[in-house]
């Protein structure tokens, strides 16, 4: 099946998300759609999948123009999509999820489970998609859930499979597994449209590459004809440094000391398991690992947000015990916190930039006096910080919700770095950001380090960890399975992330 998108244009108000996009997908190819967040990739895929409708332009299958009123129609025409966020029912089994919506039935409408299982196992063998049809979806890891989504699409006879940022939730090893699956799909004559903003993946799987920027296709190439630097330049429209320029670290006194820290979650399960770790002033210690291995809880405990669940051990900040400090005490004692999910924990989206910049100090002089806020002062300071932190907005009065992800994150960074910082806890600080903003945030983190703050970086992006960290602590299942110096190979860190413990590595 040959799929063509011709001249697709889609505008949201004054904003042109897709501007005359052409894309051709031939049978049996893996086509990477590369672009920064906000480049219009997801909009394009949503149009292709019938979730949105183009203002102009045409979709053609084997030369015939088609129109998809809804995703159901796209599925019937052989298009399958695996969304960034899986559409699975956690309490159903794998098999039930896969057949949901087109259940094979026996007479009288009884579900034909045996046929469903057989079909799933056949597909699973054919493409190396290891899934257990009888497991409950809530009990299987995200990598397996993704395979379930792929099997689901194949069961519906998808000839074109769209994968939207599929590796965001995977370990390096799981990603490798996915790439193998993708190649076997292509070999069977199906085509795969792989959406990503990660350059390395493009070289691992793509037959052809289309690069988008600001709603337009800016170039088309193949992995053989190009290299990472060239692609990065195409994505952002200028040369970017993939490496953060920094001096050797100059570690001083310990600023954060975790001693045998153990945390439980609301159900009483241990999520952080006897963790001991020290961060000194003037160094970046990265906590690497696949998400959901206790890093979030660890960062929250340090910033005072999880203090109810410390069952053992202690947290000390510059010698002071802060194990049971409240969030306010934690930030007053010199912790800056860039939370993992800026839209949930970092910002009040409906409020202005200026208000968000003082979320922590709104009631302190000079922002307020005798319980009354000095709105003029807050606004003027806000305008000043727009410039200082390169936040692109028409004024400090606009709601944060109207900003792009990169500018939202700069608002969080601006607020947190406006206090005296002893320890910076940065959780996934560049998730979902464009290359320009990533560069900016990385620069700021290194500047804080050079100024003498200790930095605890929690990140599941291995590239980020490798670029910023002076030391890398790898977490798996709540425990720190190894602390390695920067410069350690990706493979070795990947093994640690998967829980293969190293005996030779020294603890911090």
């Amino acid at each position, binding site marked *: 099946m040959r799929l063509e998108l011709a001249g697709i244009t889609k505008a*949201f108000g*004054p*904003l*042109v*998300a897709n501007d005359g996009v052409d894309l051709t997908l031939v049978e049996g190819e893996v086509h990477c759609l590369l672009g920064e*967040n*906000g*480049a*219009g*990739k*997801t*909009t394009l895929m*949503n149009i292709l999948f019938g979730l*949105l409708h183009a203002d102009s332009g045409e979709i053609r299958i084997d030369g015939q123009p088609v129109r998809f009123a809804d995703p159901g129609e796209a599925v019937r025409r052989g298009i399958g999509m695996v969304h960034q966020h899986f559409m699975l029912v956690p309490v159903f089994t794998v098999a039930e999820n896969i057949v949901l919506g087109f259940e094979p039935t026996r007479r009288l409408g009884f579900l034909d489970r045996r046929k469903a299982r057989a079909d799933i196992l056949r597909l699973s063998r054919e493409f190396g998609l290891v899934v257990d049809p009888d497991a409950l979806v809530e009990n299987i890891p995200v990598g397996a859930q993704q395979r379930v989504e792929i099997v689901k699409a194949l069961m519906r006879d998808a000839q074109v499979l769209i994968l939207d940022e599929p590796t965001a939730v995977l370990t390096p090893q799981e990603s490798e597994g996915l790439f193998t699956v993708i190649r076997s799909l292509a070999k069977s004559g199906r085509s795969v449209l792989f959406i990503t903003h990660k350059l390395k993946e493009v070289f691992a799987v793509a037959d052809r590459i289309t690069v988008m920027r*600001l*709603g337009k296709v800016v170039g088309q190439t193949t992995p053989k004809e190009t290299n990472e630097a060239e692609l990065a330049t195409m994505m952002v429209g200028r040369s970017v440094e993939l490496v953060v320029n920094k001096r050797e670290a100059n570690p001083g006194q310990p600023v954060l000391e975790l001693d045998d820290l153990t945390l439980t979650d609301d159900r009483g399960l241990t999520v952080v398991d006897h963790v001991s770790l020290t961060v000194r002033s003037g160094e970046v210690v990265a906590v690497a690992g696949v998400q959901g291995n206790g890093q979030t809880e660890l960062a929250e405990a340090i*910033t005072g*947000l999880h203090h109810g669940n410390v069952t053992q051990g202690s947290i000390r900040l510059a010698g002071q015990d802060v194990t049971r400090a*409240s*969030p*306010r005490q*934690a*930030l*007053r004692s010199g912790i800056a*916190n860039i*939370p993992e999910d800026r*839209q*949930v*924990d*970092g*910002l*009040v*989206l*409906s*409020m202005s930039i200026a*208000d968000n910049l003082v*979320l*922590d100090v*709104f*009631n302190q002089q000079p922002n*307020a006096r005798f*319980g*009354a*806020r000095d*709105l003029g002062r807050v606004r003027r300071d806000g305008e000043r910080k727009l410039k200082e932190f390169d936040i*692109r*907005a*028409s004024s400090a009065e*606009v*709601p944060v*919700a*109207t*900003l*792009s*992800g*990169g*500018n939202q994150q700069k608002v969080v960074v601006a607020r947190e770095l406006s206090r005296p910082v002893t320890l910076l806890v940065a959780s996934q600080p560049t998730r*979902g950001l*464009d290359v320009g903003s990533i560069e900016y945030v990385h620069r700021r983190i290194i500047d804080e380090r050079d100024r003498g703050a200790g930095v605890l970086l929690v990140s599941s992006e291995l590239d980020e960890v490798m670029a910023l960290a002076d030391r890398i602590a790898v977490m798996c299942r709540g425990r720190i399975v190894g602390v390695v110096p920067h410069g350690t190979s990706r493979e070795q860190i990947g093994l640690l992330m998967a829980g293969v413990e190293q005996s030779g590595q020294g603890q911090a």
Partner: protein
Amino acid sequence: MTAADVPPEDQVVPDASPAPSTAPSSPWRRAFGWIAEGNLALVTFLAVVVGLFVGAILIIVTTTATLHAWGNVFSAPGHAFGVTFSTLGHAYGALFTGSIFSPSAVSHAISTGSGWTTVFTPISETLVSATPLMLAGTGVALGFSTGVFNIGGQGQYICGAMAATYVGFAVHLPLLLHLPLVVIAGAAGGAVAGFIPGILKATTGAHEVIVTIMLNYVFLYLLDYLLTTPPFQQPGQSNAISRTVPQSAQLPHLLGSGLRVNFGLIIALAVAAAMSWFMRRSTLGFQFKVIGSNPAAGRTAGMDARLATVLVLTISGALVGLAGMTTLSGTDFFMSSNYGGSNGFNGITVALLGRNRPLGVVLGSLLFAALSTGGRYMQATTGIPIDLTTVIQAVIVFMVATPALVREIFHLRQGRTGKILLFTKGWAG
């Protein structure tokens, strides 16, 4: 379409772009653009129009005379229209005359120089009914804008009135000392009733909607108990009514003894003004707004969401309690069973109608009160039941709660304000 699909903000709000082409120079065109955009105040106004329209249809299909005339529409079409218009004219005329003023009473007063009290009676009655709605509505609105659903208006209303009654009859002081004490007691009574769900939510996570609804019954029956028990019960009475508060505990009239409008209105307006300042300028109000919009971000920034919840429900209860005090000390002077009726619940309605803004609540209360007082007069003069005004009120609230429907009916474009409102709702939910 997620936020991540949108190209960077500098594309959306360009600094260097020319003035928006949708802002024409002439004020008329601007006004037209404003209407077409479906501004929220306009939506509210159109909701009233729809409410009156639905009311008109109900009048036509429930009045014998109009039905009869329409039955003979083919033999006498002019008659059918004539009867319809005169019935509607009488009904809505009475609604207006009974709630604002009567032109004939005005001309009578001008020609004879007397009867001014009659002229001002309708508007005075409207203001009297609006007073508790303003206070209760402001209290509930504070909760709503902080993400707390205070459904306990009825109980807090009763609690405020009970405390005011007790301080009213049990304390003997001159008016200048006694009355302020009664006011404070009213607020304190409501505050206690609001504090209970607040502390329960903060410490145990109990949902305030359940707790406040249940507390309504608790206070309703507590009142019933007190009304038949000394010292609360009126001595020598077997009926369930309380003692009467003395003159020193009564809110003074504003426009002479003939008109019931009283100092409670001043309190209500002052509270609304104070609340407006509080939400815009105070640090506590800012904290409430942050926690209302995104408690997680507030917590991360060091705010104490639990303390804020307790404070919000306590203040919200205090304002609803004040509402109970104003009717007790302003017009009733004693309590009977089920005191306050639906005033506590109507506070929720006017908060919604006023979109949680103090000025909006004041205007919404006036509209609601006018419909109620006018409705009583309409029933007395035209025989159309007062329930009709309840239907009109319900339709208005329904329309205000679904701005998209109003826009659809009147073919308005989705305005910027509306989008942001819905957006905030989504995140607050």
